[in-house]
């Protein structure tokens, strides 16, 4: 197939890093801020940023409903950090009026790993990858629970007990990570997503 065109939701956040990572993973990448720009892409990345700001701007500029329609219609989407929150069917510790696009049957807790002082990086095994990825977690959310159709791709040990925290998931054409591969220069997760986009187009 031809090279897929993948948008990066560019309302706020680390858009540039995702554009660079997608280009390195052999996709055509472009920013998306308007419904007509969304209509022109095969897939979308929702970047890290401040989820309350991104959600508010998506509602104000008429993107929330088109995003939900595209997700329902099977468009592949990858969300990192704030983008993971946007893909969650249910969120905890969000603002009362905070809307999400939804699509992944999961409950995500916002800022679950703590404030910036608790932000960290660590090596994590990622399902299907030979070598661990470096997870950069910044005021990061975690996945509190998932539905039956959701595949867990990565976990980190909990700091305060035996449990592991879910930090990467996939459901159908939707992928989400609590952490930021776009900050590491390691493009394997973006390559994984580009393969998902190519498979969805076949």
């Amino acid at each position, binding site marked *: 197939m031809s090279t897929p065109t993948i948008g990066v939701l560019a309302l706020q*956040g680390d858009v540039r890093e995702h554009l660079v990572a997608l280009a390195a993973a052999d996709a055509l990448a472009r920013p998306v801020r308007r419904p007509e720009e969304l209509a022109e892409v095969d897939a979308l990345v929702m970047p890290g940023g*401040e989820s*309350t700001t991104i959600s508010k701007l998506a509602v104000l500029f008429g993107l929330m409903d088109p995003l939900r329609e595209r997700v329902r219609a099977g468009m592949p989407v990858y969300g990192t950090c704030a983008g993971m929150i946007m893909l969650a069917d249910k969120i905890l510790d969000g603002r009362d009026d905070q809307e999400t696009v939804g699509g992944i049957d999961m409950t995500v807790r916002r800022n679950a790993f703590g*404030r910036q002082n608790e*932000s960290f990086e660590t090596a994590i095994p990622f399902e299907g990858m030979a070598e661990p990825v470096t997870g950069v977690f910044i005021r990061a959310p975690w996945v509190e629970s998932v539905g039956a159709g959701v595949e867990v791709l990565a976990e980190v040990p909990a700091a305060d007990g035996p449990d592991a925290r879910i930090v990467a998931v996939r459901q159908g054409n939707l992928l989400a990570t609590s952490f930021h591969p776009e900050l590491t220069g390691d493009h394997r997760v973006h390559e994984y997503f580009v393969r998902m986009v190519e498979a969805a187009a076949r």
Partner: protein
Amino acid sequence: MSTTPTTADQPQIGTARVKRGMAEQLKGGVIMDVVNAEQAKIAEDAGAVAVMALERVPADIRKDGGVARMSDPNMIEEIIEAVSIPVMAKSRIGHFVEAQVLQSLGVDYIDESEVLTPADEINHSDKWAFTTPFVCGATNLGEALRRIAEGAAMIRSKGEAGTGNVVEAVRHLRQIKNEIAKLRGFDNNELYAAAKELRAPYELVREVAELGKLPVVLFSAGGVATPADAALMRQLGAEGVFVGSGIFKSGDPAKRAAAIVKATTFFDDPKVIADASRNLGEAMVGINCDTLPESERYANRGW
């Protein structure tokens, strides 16, 4: 057989990547000065990506005179409690104990700020000694690189805080961008002399020449009062804006704050900026920077 995990396997906090990465998440956004929990909520409602907690906005620091210091920890904690977005707070230049206190309070970013009265007229704080990241002001590239060498994880062009006048913000951002563009044209032989002239480490100078940008996020500050001001700074190359007195010294702070957020995202779309600029009520009065005596120019503080 059990193996002892090496440090590389353990989660690392306070790394340069984690500190600089935090600023990357703020890009395209507006960081707003607030003096209490109520204002912080208004800022969050309006779509701010973070708030800067301080006792007096720069316009009032100017008016009141005297020594301006770190804010009361109670006030900072109330703001941390009130909102879910990141909270920044200011320490005086070189006052590393104020910075230690701010880190212990759990603020998400420390602004070592010329808006407060400097505590040290030679040295800035050693920012590598902290896990909390720092943002620092700069009027030119050399100053920005000296702050990054000291550990700053984010830079804001200084402008002239508390004036509501964007002229100095434009001057400083243009200065930084022009100096970066000039470095791009230098060959390797010239970079050593450039480093000497900039009074900055050669390694950082070379990195900027290669990247064509600072190795950390660059915001603009000091004088943004309208949606068009914010969009101007974005078009000039700022990755986001700080708005200090401009919001809560205006007639309708909630509306103006939301308008500046919209204009910051759609900085290249005059229609959106026009719509955002309608019926905002009174802007802050503003000060003509030509009439400011040298001693009242905050941008001169920092070395």
